[in-house]
């Protein structure tokens, strides 16, 4: 065990830091969920990253990456959050679909999709859930019927983040209409501007748009758009979900930066808050550190050829519950001002804690609800019998 960075890793950190200092926008960009303008501003930032070959440092150079290892990815992420750089509008693509494409895609598919993904030219949404298939994802009803060399997509997808403005979506479809449950499903890509696609924004808890439902009415896409074999969709989705829950969806640095801001907020209001809040602030810092250490341990193991397993589910539970606790601590410190909008004259230094608190409440739901994660832990890590 060696918990010191190598000279090369330290130099890499400096390189990332100085690039970000030069390029990160001085002002926060407008939200990519609420307006086309904000979405396009984030796409432009993705292009800046891609031009510097910082879009996805772990990807091979041939797809716009740098071929770096997971420890270097963590260092990149640490500097990225430290610099307060914009959220990644293409996270569904680069963090979820990208790694899955690299594992299951043909060379032609990789060439077609990865480069445009890395450059920000194509921003991706995920289209898995349906009104009747949420936690029970295997209840998917949307169909993709092969007609010669085209699939005809039909169905109704929902809770699709980024779908309002994104260019493409990767969806789970039943390619064998007679099939049941996990069998007969396939993963298929479709352009969100294809004829027969209708996207309807769904206002979120804060009244703003953020996710959407997608209606597919005889949407025709080439068979080339299927990732993996027909009927292999379920297994590929689970591999994607492993990445999502496990490593890439929520960088530890995100929470470590939030913990630092929470400590700063606490210090500014220490005299006014009750003693239990101090313990909650310290716990938030400790949890963020624990999550970071855990990801370093996982990254070290993966770098040595290991695979991510059911511990991906423990990660998802841990960060989502930590995120809520952290924001609750901040709201406690803000006291009576916690309910104010930032436009209120008395808002002062309330920051974005209330927005963050709302968003944290989604954490235990998206990317597979925490109830499902606990089932996975119980069955696959602890070996308890299925219901």
């Amino acid at each position, binding site marked *: 065990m060696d918990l010191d960075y190598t000279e090369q890793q330290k130099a890499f950190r400096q390189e990332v830091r100085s690039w970000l200092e030069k390029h990160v926008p001085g002002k926060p960009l407008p939200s990519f969920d609420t307006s086309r303008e904000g979405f396009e501003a984030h796409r432009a930032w993705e292009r800046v990253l891609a031009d510097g070959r910082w879009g996805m440092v772990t990807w091979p150079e041939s797809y716009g990456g740098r071929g770096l290892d997971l420890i270097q990815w963590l260092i990149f992420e640490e500097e990225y*959050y430290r610099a307060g750089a914009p959220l990644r509008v293409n996270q569904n693509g680069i963090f979820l679909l990208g790694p899955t494409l690299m594992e299951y895609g043909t060379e032609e598919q990789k060439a077609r999709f990865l480069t445009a993904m890395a450059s920000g030219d194509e921003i991706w949404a995920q289209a898995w859930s349906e009104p009747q298939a949420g936690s029970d994802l295997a209840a998917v009803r949307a169909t993709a019927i092969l007609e010669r060399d085209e699939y005809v997509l039909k169905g109704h997808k929902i809770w699709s983040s980024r779908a309002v403005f994104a260019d493409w979506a990767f969806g789970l479809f039943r390619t064998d209409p007679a099939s049941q449950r996990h069998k007969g499903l396939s993963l298929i890509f479709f352009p969100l501007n294809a004829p027969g696609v209708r996207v309807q924004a769904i206002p979120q808890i804060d009244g703003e748009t953020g996710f959407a439902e997608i209606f597919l009415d005889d949407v025709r896409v080439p068979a080339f758009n299927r990732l993996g074999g027909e009927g292999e969709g379920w297994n590929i989705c689970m591999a994607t979900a492993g990445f999502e829950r496990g490593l890439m969806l929520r960088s530890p640095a995100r929470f470590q930066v939030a913990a630092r801001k929470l400590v700063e907020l606490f210090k500014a209001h220490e005299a006014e808050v009750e003693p239990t809040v101090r313990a909650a602030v310290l716990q938030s810092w400790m949890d963020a550190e624990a999550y970071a250490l855990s990801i370093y341990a996982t990254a070290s193991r993966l770098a040595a050829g290991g695979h991510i397993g059911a511990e991906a589910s423990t990660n998802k539970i841990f960060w989502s519950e930590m995120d809520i606790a952290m924001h609750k601590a901040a709201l406690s410190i803000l006291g009576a001002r916690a309910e104010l909008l930032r436009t209120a004259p008395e808002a002062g230094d309330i920051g974005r804690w209330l927005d963050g608190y709302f968003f944290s409440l989604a954490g235990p739901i998206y990317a597979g609800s925490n109830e499902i994660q606990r089932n996975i832990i119980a069955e696959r890590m602890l070996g308890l019998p299925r219901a």
Partner: protein
Amino acid sequence: MDFRFSEEQTMTADVVRELLADVCQPADLRRLMGAGVARDEARWTKIVEMGLAGALVAEDKGGLGLSAIDFVQIAEACGYAGLPEPLVENAGVVLPLLAAFSANGRAAALLESALVGDVTVTVAHPTNPFVADADTAEAVLVVRDGAVHLIETAKAKIVAQPSVDPFRRLFTVEFEPSDATLIAGADEAAGPLAAALDRGALFAAAQMQGIAQRCVDLGVAYAKERQQFGKPIGSYQAVKHHLATAQVKIEFARPVLHAAAAQLENADLYSRARISQAKLACTDASDVAARTSIQVHGAMGYSWEVDVHFFLKRGIALTNWWGGPAFHRERVAARVFARPLGPEHTFAREAEHA
């Protein structure tokens, strides 16, 4: 940067784990408890024969010269087994402390017989209000006004303070300090005593990590067997989710514990905060896991017959051993409120910020 144990470290821990699986089963614990003693001489001899007594003592002083990261998984295995004998305290904390004073002739002679396993030694550290295993120890290291005295237990007045844990032997120790008993003055003793606290807290945390996993494993085994409504209770989500929640606590205490072990020797504000964080996290894991296991066992969990109570009680004991939650939270606060925070400081050392 490589957050993995070496094969050798894991192999050594595996050997200890296998030995304890062989000689330290709940039936063995119950036999010992029935006899009213806290040490199985045959088992202790096997442990001593592995050479573990001198694990953390430098090679030039007759030990194996291992470091905390080499020993941490062994301490976890001791917690998992509920080992009554003082391997963790004696080898993990007291002998490295005694070795720090080996320039003193009496300390050197005692160290020599402790390293071959002829005797054990204990410590009355200012952090702990009681002294463990003073009845079986040859001598006790006692602190008075910051200076360390070495007292033969035969010459001290020891008063038993019975613990709820049937295998913990706690005492208060009264003694008369003199020039003859002094082995290190306060200046010389401060560093080694601080290091003993760090090792004590770290290895108490490690034992609690083992306790936590044992409690979950006992709960899982029972939930697979016990049938209600015609099915194993472990197939119900209410039971699954309890156990999964406890396992999440364990999974996120582990990397903190291991990072703390790897950085213990930095002996600075950062490494001490990490050790304290590990103690807090492992305490939490052990607490949640023990209560979960009792709940999963139902009425059996509240019985003497089921083994969970051994681990519940050891967890209660270790929660405050080498510093309780309030003490360790303040050591974390000392780092959080006085040093830079953020993702680039996860593995920081004091020297880099001096």
